[in-house]
């Protein structure tokens, strides 16, 4: 089970959280302007990164807030958590 560092509540068990998939996927500004291809990509295509992945979580059984996390999808280690609307942290410095 993952120990997830909620930005508001601190480290809590995975069972308290819901998963929201890839972060930073904006709703298209004008869906009517999109081709079928582009709309299909918005609906069904998400990054499936092997490695560092920006994703959304919600602390359902705690503060009930959404937040973003940078997590390694191989080791499952959380590298950073940050609030929705904030830019993805740059972890390249100091990374091995």
């Amino acid at each position: 089970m993952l120990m997830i560092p909620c930005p508001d509540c601190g480290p809590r068990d995975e069972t308290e959280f819901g998963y929201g998939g890839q972060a930073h996927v904006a709703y298209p500004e004008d869906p009517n302007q999109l081709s079928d291809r582009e709309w299909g990509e918005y609906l069904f295509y998400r990054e499936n990164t092997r490695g560092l992945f920006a994703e959304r979580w919600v602390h359902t059984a705690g503060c009930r807030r959404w937040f973003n996390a940078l997590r390694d999808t191989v080791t499952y280690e959380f590298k950073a958590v940050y609030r929705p609307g904030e830019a993805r942290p740059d972890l390249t410095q100091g990374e091995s």
Partner: protein
Amino acid sequence: MAEMLPEHPDFLWRNPDPKPSYDAVIVGGGGHGLATAYYLAKNHGMTNIAILERGWLAGGNMARNTTIIRSNYLWDESAALYEHSMKLWEQLPEELEYDFLFSQRGVMNLAHTLQDVRESQRRVNANVLNGVDAEWITPEQVKELCPIINTGDDIRYPVMGATYQPRAGIAKHDHVAWAFARKCDEMGVDIIQNCEVTGFIKDGNRVVGVETSRGRINAGKVGLAAAGNSSVLADLAGFRLPIQSHPLQALVSELFEPVHPTVVMSNHVHVYVSQAHKGELVMGAGVDAYNGYGQRGGFHVIEEQLAAAVELFPIFARAHLLRSWGGTVDTTFDASPIVSTTPIDELYVNAGWGTGGFKGTPAAGYSFAHTIATGSAHPLNEPFALDRFETGHLIDEHGAAAVAH
């Protein structure tokens, strides 16, 4: 001492070094890759081909699944594909000259709510119209077929009936892989292990080879059959797949005398159980929620499925969990596979089988081989093309997939 040991049995396949060039290479030496190579050689006469496997043969999901084989899917497209797979399963032990313990012991999909009952009966009717053996059975019939199920009405989700497919069953997964591998090898297919694909060589928009950990290999055609790592390969090749990779876990108990004569699946309380030939109770449940390539998941998922199993099968309370493990499954948003051409010429993809790829092994190989050999889909996999996520012709099998994802 050594001279007293028996002779090593014959190896089932050679371990050749890669040739500089093949007519086709299949990336991924699991069940689907092996079946694809088998049908390429057998049905399409392509024998100058290789299977490239990053690790060892059938060491990924082919070694980790719960071996359930069935074809009771809801939609016409899926029923056609999975029923074709079932018919191939029925002839493969003889065709491959290998008894891989295909046991048609039937599968029940339990219904625990009124909505379950309605959906299950609808699926039975759809199955019958599609020529798939299926019937609706009452709790009394459930009990008769599998006496250890608790069909009492004093549990949280009582058994209200089940769909039953008598021709469904299980098979010994590693023997299936070895059976395909031996036949592929006999027909001249090179099975190359410890050979990781690290890049794709293209001439314009056409793939002409792969870079591997064992050097460059030229290929007229390339087929991807890499399950959980399909997106990673697609990224390397320069196209996208609508796939999310998740951990999926399974477990076994210690060995028991035969107590469980069939396969029982419950979507609602979320567990599926059969008893392997050796005697272990084999169980699985749903995927872990998050994206993951780590081939492991959370123990709370195991706890939940064991809780469901013990409620359905009270005698399991005295069984011990012997081993649990995880694989990486490639899920799509409509819970149906992708067997398709790609935006890159002569590059083909077989992926997105999610939690249910084992049962589809023969049909995946059969239809994917056709697609690779001819450059266009077989009628069986035509609906499972990549462009359905653009046209909207999704094949939503979340109900019959029996595993939440």
